[in-house]
């Protein structure tokens, strides 16, 4: 979803150092995140802007003036988007489905990694630092397990947040194009599949190994207490996760169904007949 005019004001501040490529990147920015425009549509629009700029420059205008005029003639993103949405419906949905599937896989890997790390930190901490192990006997006051379980799920959430923020910043600061990254990965499908299988195997081995170490290193009541903590912490974590997902879904839905500004569609009539 795109709002308002393209981000051209940044390029207007210093007329002496106008960089057309940078200006085009800024202009593409909000459109790139639109669900209704394919990468190819953007490439075509960019080719149009460049043609337009070249033609306007021949009339003696500065590069910056040409760019501003060309993008204005092209139309506001908020007006263009619904037009592209009309013709891209199937592809837009396939694209969304693809991202959902990828998202679920990535989420699965991230949660598995963060769970293993949490267990390593918390359970390892209990042993290594000699922290008091919750000792609860069946039938006794099991609510004493709630405190370590809460602590454990908090650590879990922190680790999870840390991983997500880390991955996000890595992608952002290197200005990696996720589409491009995926396209490159797909050029070696065998390697990609082998990597995915190995990663899944490694992650599925982690759980049993942890349990084995816990069972070997602790007395039966301790194992029971740790298991109870893990189960409770899992429950608390799932609760937080569900809340997060509900909030995310609502936020995305609100963005998706935000009404278009009527002013832009008023001044820029559609060329596509119903």
């Amino acid at each position: 979803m795109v709002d308002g005019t393209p981000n051209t004001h940044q390029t207007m501040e210093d007329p002496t150092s106008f960089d057309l490529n940078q200006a085009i990147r800024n202009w593409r920015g909000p459109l790139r995140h639109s669900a209704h425009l394919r990468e190819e549509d953007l490439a075509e629009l960019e080719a149009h802007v460049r043609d337009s700029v070249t033609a306007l420059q021949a009339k003696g205008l500065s590069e910056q003036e040409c760019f501003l005029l060309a993008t204005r003639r092209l139309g506001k993103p908020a007006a263009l988007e619904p037009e592209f949405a009309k013709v891209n419906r199937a592809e837009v949905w396939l694209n969304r489905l693809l991202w959902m599937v990828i998202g679920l896989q990535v989420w699965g890997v991230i949660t598995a990694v963060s769970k293993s790390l949490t267990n390593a930190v918390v359970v390892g901490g209990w042993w290594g630092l000699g922290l008091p192990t919750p000792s609860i006997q069946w039938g006794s006051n099991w609510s004493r397990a709630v405190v370590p379980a809460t602590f454990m799920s908090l650590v879990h959430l922190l680790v999870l947040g840390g991983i997500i923020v880390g991955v996000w910043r890595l992608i952002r600061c290197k200005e990696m194009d996720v589409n491009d990254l995926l396209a490159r990965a797909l050029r070696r499908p065998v390697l990609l599949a082998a990597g995915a299988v190995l990663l899944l195997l490694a992650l599925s081995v982690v759980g049993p190994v942890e349990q084995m170490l816990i069972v070997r290193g602790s007395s039966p009541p301790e194992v029971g207490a740790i298991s109870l903590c893990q189960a409770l912490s899992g429950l608390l974590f799932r609760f937080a996760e569900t809340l997060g997902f509900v909030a995310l879904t609502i936020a995305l839905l609100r963005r998706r169904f935000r009404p278009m500004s009527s002013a832009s569609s008023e001044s820029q009539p559609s060329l596509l007949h119903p």
Partner: protein
Amino acid sequence: MLSRELVAASTIPLVLSILREGESYGYALIQRVQALSDGKIGWTEGMLYPVLHWLEAEGLVASEWREVETGRKRKYYRLKPKGNQALITEREQWLTVHQTLTKLWKTQPHLT
């Protein structure tokens, strides 16, 4: 300036007619329409592309990315036989409207 309804209705016959002269790309199509109409048919330029994509999905035109002399890439469109058929139908319909109006206006020469 044309009304928005007329702009929307005339885009497809205009595009098909220009492509009948030979293959072309979005920017050139717009320039041609502007020149022919003395700037009276003003499109919001970006809105032409969904129309071209719709025509392609309907099998009326075909497209191809091609590198031009400057090293840039451009998407060229050309008319397909089905597009030619569609253009013939469009032409008949527009001529019917045009001829009817012309006959009427001949008998009412002083429209004010």
